[in-house]
């Protein structure tokens, strides 16, 4: 773990001391090196549980895929931001990359934490760099509102979580996940305990986001610059999922009844946000709502608390992270050329950008969960386990799959097919950097088809 954490911390002097000519090359190369080192974590030495050389930071089948995704994403974020940050003064460029590296450090420490309070502090700590990235480097006036919504929704959920964790510490004496997995099941039988149950989960449900408390997400994703959108969609939402998976272990048997409203909200959210996607005019907003839809499925899978549910949730989280980030990169390429997110302004692109049309195609197919891509694996496992829990859910999840296919195809057809309007005939061709970015997103998705054991957690 330190093999990756210390180089990430040493990125800060690297960023500030490199000469301006080599800044982007150096940071991309170093973060790519760190990402390759993190790939070595994928060979784990024990079947279940944690692998750790110390008591405070550990890796295991549940969180290693998320850690690798986080490390993999930093070079991609730096690659994606190169174009729009380059015109700024050099110290602001350094500051931007510092914020990305800071976010990376906090995320590694959050995912690797074995003590729940450490996870909580790092979970909250990721808010500050993200807030600064969204509000300082976003492009429209709405970014201020977006930052406020983002910060306050997340904090309103996580402050009760802090109190709930302190209550847990008081009753069990420890908050180390290594110890808590062996503790006695808690006697949860009163109204107060029900509030405690809710307090434990609301923070993660807001972060995921669950349908009723999802309003921060479209604002934050749309107003953030591309690196902000990427990291939000790919990793920060997964913090919520990961936190929920860790906390659910301790929350039985109350979860059998109390999870009902949240599962219903999650499933209904899939349909509602999917339908909203079909009516969006803003490309990034469409991808943001599609994120809510997929994460609703993940939330449903986790709240069910079955082995297939958890496995499906992790697989869908990893696959959705890569694909959603890829879609945001593609949307950003359109934005950088037309300076607008409106979909009808950047349509019929297949004629002028043929290779990019391939990336759009693959990303949209992955988004709609085409077999054999891992998105389908995850969705199918979650849909199956929900069907096992209650057969009626197939109506909602099946309809949701249909609507997902609908808006993914809509996105593809709107942006790529159809007549190319005259005003975009003269757009700049795609850079190699952008093609590299897209391959680095999509090749892992395709490769994961061949070895899904890397992703599916402890349940197999």
């Amino acid at each position, binding site marked *: 773990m330190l093999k990756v954490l210390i180089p990430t911390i040493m990125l800060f002097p690297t960023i500030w001391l490199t000469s301006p000519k080599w800044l982007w090359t150096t940071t991309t190369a170093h973060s790519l090196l760190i990402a390759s080192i993190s790939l070595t974590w994928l060979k784990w030495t024990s079947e279940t549980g944690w692998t750790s050389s110390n008591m405070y930071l550990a890796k295991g089948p549940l969180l290693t895929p998320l850690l690798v995704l986080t490390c993999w994403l930093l070079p991609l974020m730096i690659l994606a931001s190169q174009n729009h940050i380059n015109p700024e003064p050099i110290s602001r460029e350094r500051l931007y990359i510092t914020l990305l590296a800071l976010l990376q450090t906090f995320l590694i420490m959050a995912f690797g934490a074995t003590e729940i309070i450490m996870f909580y*502090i790092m979970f909250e700590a990721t808010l500050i760099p993200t807030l600064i990235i969204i*509000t300082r480097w976003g492009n429209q006036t709405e970014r201020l509102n977006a930052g406020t919504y983002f910060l306050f929704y997340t904090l309103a959920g996580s402050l009760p979580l*802090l*109190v709930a964790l302190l209550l847990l510490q008081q009753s069990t004496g420890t908050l180390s996940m290594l110890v808590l997995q062996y503790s006695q099941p808690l006697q949860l039988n009163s109204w107060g305990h029900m509030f405690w149950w809710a307090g434990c989960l609301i923070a993660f449900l807001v972060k995921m986001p669950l349908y009723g408390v999802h309003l921060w997400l479209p604002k934050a994703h749309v107003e953030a610059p591309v690196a902000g959108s990427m990291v939000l969609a790919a990793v920060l939402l997964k913090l919520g999922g990961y936190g929920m998976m860790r906390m659910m272990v301790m929350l039985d048997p109350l979860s059998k009844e109390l999870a009902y409203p949240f599962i219903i909200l999650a499933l209904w959210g899939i349909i509602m946000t999917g339908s909203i996607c079909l009516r969006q005019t803003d490309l990034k907003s469409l991808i943001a709502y599609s994120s809510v839809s997929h994460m609703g499925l993940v939330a449903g899978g986790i709240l069910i608390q079955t082995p297939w549910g958890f496995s499906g949730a992790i697989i869908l989280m990893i696959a959705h992270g890569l694909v959603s980030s890829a879609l945001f990169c593609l949307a950003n390429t359109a934005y950088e050329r037309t300076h607008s997110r409106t979909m009808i302004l950047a349509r019929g692109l297949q004629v002028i950008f043929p290779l990019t049309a391939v990336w759009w195609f693959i990303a949209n197919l992955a988004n709609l969960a085409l077999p054999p891509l891992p998105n389908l694996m995850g969705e199918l496992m979650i849909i199956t386990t929900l069907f096992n829990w209650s057969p009626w859910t197939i109506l909602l999840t099946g309809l949701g799959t249909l609507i997902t296919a609908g808006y993914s195809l809509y996105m593809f057809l709107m942006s790529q097919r159809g007549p190319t309007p005259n005003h975009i005939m003269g757009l700049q061709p795609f850079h190699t950097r952008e093609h590299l970015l897209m391959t680095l997103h999509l090749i892992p998705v395709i490769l994961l088809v061949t070895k899904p054991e890397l992703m599916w957690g402890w349940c197999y």
Partner: protein
Amino acid sequence: MNPYRRATLLCSVGLGTTLTFASSHWLLAWMGLEINTLAITPLMAQHHHPRAVEATTKYFLTQATAAAMILFASTTNAWMTGEWSINDLSNPIASTMFMAALALKIGLAPMHFWMPEVLQGLDLLTGLILSTWQKLAPLALIIQTAQTIDPLLLTLLGISSTLVGGWGGLNQTQLRKILAYSSIAHMGWMIIVIQYAPQLTLIALGTYIIMTSAAFLTLKMSLTTKISTLATTWSKSPILTSTTALVLLSLGGLPPLTGFMPKWLILQELTKQDLPIIATAMALTALISLYFYLRLLYAMTLTISPNMINSTTPWRTQTTQTSLPLALFTTAALGLLPMAPAILMLTT
């Protein structure tokens, strides 16, 4: 002001507080508080501006009222129990009056109304002394008598202070008033835990002094008193805008900055004492204050305001103010959270 006069007055302010620290007799404590008030009055009015004189008058009246109430309460206690010692405060009437008087002295809600107006009339350095040093003597007395005061009163004072501190600051554009409401809110956090773990009150006070000093010294360095002038500080000192942004988030209590430490420890103590609802309520009221800190953050750092700026490079000229205290306080306001075990050990 004549430097000799200023030195004498500052030493008297220090003497008053130290006298109160060292006292075990209520009359000596009262005398220390009065010396403190009398000495700071000319310091507050030194600029002879009508607004400053008004602030001084308000401050003097409220503090004198509080001191008179302390005198009255101590004589009541002496009459009822025959004891003048600070630690032996057994009469409930006397102890409640003491708490009300000391709450008036430090500006706890609902006795907070003087605080924003007084702070607004002062210059920034005197305002800093008012927010930090002047709280020490009354808090010392409160810590010593906390065990005998009605727990309900302390809890009510705490919660209403955090609520008032949050809501009152929401409509302000003057920075000194915002810092006054922030002071009220932080005092609320300090009072709520005083009956359970006084060392956490000291930690909260220590971190509050560090963060407030960083905030006041930043405003003094960039000579801003309103949000609209705050928006142009990026041209005066760009690094200051970045670090003050983090100081503001620290005041709001966001991890992993120092301001999170007292909130975390206080919430932990409250949950240990089986008061999770009060803990949740306090935590959520901190969100209200965070809103106006966030507004300051937006104005100062995250947006470039469309104000008319005559030149964009005033940062090239060196400032004549000393920057070492600001640097120290800012660093401490940002990085002390990992040292929480050491700080806990120091204060236990």
